[in-house]
């Protein structure tokens, strides 16, 4: 345990801090690319699928183990498998124009949440502990769950660092990227899988229903503050981390649910940035520069 000051002096708060900061880094990082791809709700759609995966995990545990305390490992693996397959399905529908981006997401949204409810009820697991997957609960994160979150987070950040240039090229102008010979299909599939992994890695912290907010809200603030893609990405990550730390501290000090508080802080930051930036139109080019 580290000698940190209040409100992070206790072990459970330090575990929550590590896990929340990790989410505050990788969720806005990947969110910058899905906002640029005009798929801001992708995280939400995949989140609902992850809930179906949690349900599949609960049912599998009931059938294969069925005694003792339910292990979160079953929920994580169930969510990971279903979310990755679902994410590739959404991308398949979008890329082949079988459905618009929004419609593809809606199809998965509702089917996912309904399937999750059905599977969990079949597994006899419809109880309060499932709320931690829906709304998050970083304060009860165990050491093994932290290892899972950090391992998945490290994999996401590493993949983003390797792919960031080609990801930017493809999400910014897909038609041109295809003609230029860039691996558009691979990149889109990789992004979908990375979103799915992010959702699963973050669901224990901010919850399946709120994870998309951590992918989008810091980016919404970042794009108002920055004048470049790289700058937006950096601002988004900084705001994500600050929201995680402040939200967690507020939760400890005043008692509101930490997942929701973290997201509300990110929303409040956007509100402040939007008000401060309001009316500050982009600098006009001089007549000479316009030519």
């Amino acid at each position, binding site marked *: 345990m580290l000698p940190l000051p209040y409100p992070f002096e206790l072990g459970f708060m330090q575990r929550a801090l590590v896990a929340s900061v990790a989410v505050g880094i990788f969720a806005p990082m990947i969110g910058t690319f899905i906002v640029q791809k005009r798929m801001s709700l992708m995280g939400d759609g995949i989140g609902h699928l992850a809930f179906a995966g949690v349900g599949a995990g609960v049912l599998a545990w009931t059938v294969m183990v069925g005694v003792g305390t339910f292990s979160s490992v079953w929920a994580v693996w169930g969510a990971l498998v279903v979310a990755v397959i679902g994410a590739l399905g959404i991308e398949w529908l979008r890329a082949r124009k079988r459905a618009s981006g929004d419609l593809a997401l809606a199809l998965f949204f509702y089917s996912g949440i309904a399937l999750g409810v059905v599977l969990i009820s079949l597994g006899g697991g419809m109880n309060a502990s499932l709320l931690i997957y829906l709304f998050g609960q970083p304060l009860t994160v165990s050491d093994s769950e932290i290892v899972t979150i950090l391992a998945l987070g490290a994999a996401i950040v590493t993949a983003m660092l*390797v792919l960031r240039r080609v990801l930017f090229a493809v*999400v910014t*102008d897909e038609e*041109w990227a295809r003609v*230029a010979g860039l691996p558009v299909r691979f990149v889109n599939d990789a992004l979908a899988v990375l979103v799915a992994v992010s959702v699963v890695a973050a669901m224990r912290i901010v919850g399946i229903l709120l994870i998309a907010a951590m992918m989008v809200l810091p980016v919404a603030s970042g794009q108002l503050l920055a004048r*470049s*893609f790289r700058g937006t990405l950096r601002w988004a990550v900084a705001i994500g981390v600050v929201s995680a730390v402040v939200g967690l501290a507020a939760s400890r000090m005043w008692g509101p649910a930490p997942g929701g508080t973290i997201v509300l802080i990110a929303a409040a930051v956007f509100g402040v940035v939007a008000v401060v930036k309001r009316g500050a139109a982009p*600098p006009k080019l001089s007549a000479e520069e316009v030519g």
Partner: protein
Amino acid sequence: MAAPEPSAPRVAAGTVLVEAEHVDFAYGRAQVLRDVELAVRAGEFVALVGPNGSGKSTLLRVLLGSLAPAAGEVRLFGRPAGRFEERWRVGYVPQRPSLSSEVPATVEEIVATGRLARRGWWRPLHSDDRDTIHHALESVGLDDLASRPLNELSGGQQQRAFIARAFASEPDLLVLDEPIAGVDAESQRRFRDSIVHLLEEHGAGVLLVSHELGAVVGDIDRVVVLKNEVLFDGTPGALAEHGVSLGIHREDLPLWLEELT
């Protein structure tokens, strides 16, 4: 602005870069291209003109390998267009880029993407790549605006940024779809200078699809007139013998094209 360093032509003058032979294409029952023959060689500036709906954009997509012809053959650098792998050798400037500007991106960030296909998308950019990107920005006169968000630029400046993105891959063939439609005079002049630079210093070939030839009118080597089939393929001088001028005359090209509809 420092003059860009001249470099040796990358392909031998006269080499056929793109070639269409007896190409047919149809959308369903609507025949769009009939028996089209077209070739662009290294060092050559070819303008593809035609009235609206004449199949220009479709022909472009067939030439780039994005659409497969119903009949005939298309070759890029001597290889079938659909299976051509060295895509960076073709610089493409789309008519209306489907660019997402949800997140601000600078001119330099956009132009740098042009380097990816050439460099290998998984490799980091090195100082020579940065030099090439800077050279591309210089050649379209945007080096002073490199750090500006693209969506703060005028339409003509944005179009020049897309041309610089194509230049960044050091293409042997540049294909431009209506690049100067509605662009101001200064941007047209810059556009003309950058095309001439690519033709003269790099020996590349240029295929320009446009209704308006604007500032480049005096630099064109060949004009191809398309109306679902090739109606004319020859020099501007030969076109003038048909009573049609690329300049501002009574039988001006755009007016003549309208009469073809």
